[in-house]
């Protein structure tokens, strides 16, 4: 358990470093495309540093805001609050803030930077469709994410991966929009600047790298959280039933976005084309292991 936590803290550092390096590379390539690589690099270093720092303190708020989560009223959602409190007593965690998301798709996620600053968000669909033991299983899964510090890594990934996508998006669009003006530096030299080509490749590769990073972080964590959830509830059938319900349900979680996809208990955006010719390639980008696999694993517990 403690190994898990320290490995997550290490991952966080790697994630931040990886983020800074990618942003700096992107900045340098943008700079070289525009014809002023030093400014681009310095700007990127400063930007990514500030961003990584702010992310550490504020990314839970970002994740909640992006998902349109609102604080759960203690009277209206008494059952939910009671369950969370009980499970916190059982696992020895402080009670996290509880949020609801008005969305018909059953789903949930946890966020924050440590157990003292954590939050759990569930959709109204989840509250409607799950009975007590199933809901308990799902909440215990989220609490295990909190206890294992998975939330720190995944929440940081939201803002960091999101911002890489944003930066590259903006640059590529600006280039289209600006037409030829962007590459004026190259025109004068009357040749192709190889650095600019690399830069262009970087711009395309960066979001893909970021997505892979996101997928690698979360898949193993999901199965681990499933197992430790059963340690908290002492009742694997609850979580199994909940996962089966999630599997049977095909509603897309509208409140989820590409950036937060890996945080939810079930992959919110339906995994298209998982089978077929390019199936294995698509699986590489899946943020969650298939539900069938997770259920099979829990049956063995």
């Amino acid at each position, binding site marked *: 358990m403690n190994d898990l936590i320290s490995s997550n803290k290490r991952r966080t550092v790697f994630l931040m470093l990886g983020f800074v390096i990618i942003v700096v590379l992107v900045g340098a390539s943008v700079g070289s495309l525009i014809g002023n690589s030093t400014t681009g690099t310095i700007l990127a270093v400063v930007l990514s540093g500030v961003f990584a720092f702010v992310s550490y303190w504020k990314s839970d708020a970002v994740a909640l805001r992006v998902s349109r989560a609102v604080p759960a009223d203690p009277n209206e959602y008494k059952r939910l609050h*009671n369950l969370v*409190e*009980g499970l916190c*007593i*059982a*696992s*020895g965690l402080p009670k996290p803030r509880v949020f609801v998301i008005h969305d018909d798709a059953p789903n949930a996620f946890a966020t924050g930077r440590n157990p003292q600053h954590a939050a759990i968000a569930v959709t109204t669909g989840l509250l409607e469709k799950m009975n007590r033991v199933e809901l308990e299983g799902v909440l215990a899964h989220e609490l295990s994410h909190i206890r294992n510090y998975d939330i720190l890594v995944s929440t940081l990934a939201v803002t960091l991966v999101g911002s890489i996508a944003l930066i590259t998006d903006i640059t590529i669009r600006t280039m289209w929009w600006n037409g030829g003006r962007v590459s004026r530096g190259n025109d004068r030299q009357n040749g192709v600047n190889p650095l600019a080509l690399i830069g262009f490749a970087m711009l395309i590769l960066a979001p893909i790298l970021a997505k892979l990073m996101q997928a690698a972080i979360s898949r193993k964590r999901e199965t681990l959280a499933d197992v430790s959830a059963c340690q908290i509830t*002492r009742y694997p059938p609850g979580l199994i039933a909940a996962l089966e319900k999630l599997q049977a349900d095909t509603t897309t979680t509208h409140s989820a976005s590409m950036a937060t996809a890996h945080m939810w208990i079930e992959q919110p955006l339906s995994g298209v084309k998982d089978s077929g010719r390019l199936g294995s390639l698509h699986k590489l980008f899946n943020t969650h292991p298939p539900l069938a696999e997770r259920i099979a694993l829990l049956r063995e517990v």
Partner: protein
Amino acid sequence: MNLFIVLIVVAVIAVFVGLAYNGLVRRRNDVDNSWSQIDVQLKRRLDLIPNLVETVKGYAAHERTALEAVVVARNSAMAAPATPAAQASADNALTGALRQLFALSEAYPDLKANQGFVSLQDELANTESRIAYARQFYGDSVATFNTAIQKFPTVFVAKMFSFTEREFFEAEDAARNAPQVKF
């Protein structure tokens, strides 16, 4: 040279003892903390009972025995020593008495319709499930602590600073007197 080796060995042992001691202290505090979680919920439950008894009296005053049984069980729970075993058996007795009372209350529709009674019943059920959760956490931390002080080589440190095993939250009587089945 020999002195140097002796010094190194002593230093290594000192570091080990220090680390082991700190680990044991942390685990012991975990046990104390999880015990206080149970304690809070048990107290809360005891606080709810006088109100419940008053409410039931208003509708079913002649269910004397059941009401008295609850009051007696509550009083003995209040007086029970703060050891896990004593608290657990007092808690068991109280749970039995309460169950009896709630079973009887089924016969009084007016009582069951009383808003105060319903919310008390809810609160009690809630507190009971929290006691169950707290018991689980307490059991986990006791198990970890007991394993830690029995393990080699930490066992020497535990003996040296007299760390003793903790009890689980289990009733003595219930465990010893297995229910007898007669045909």
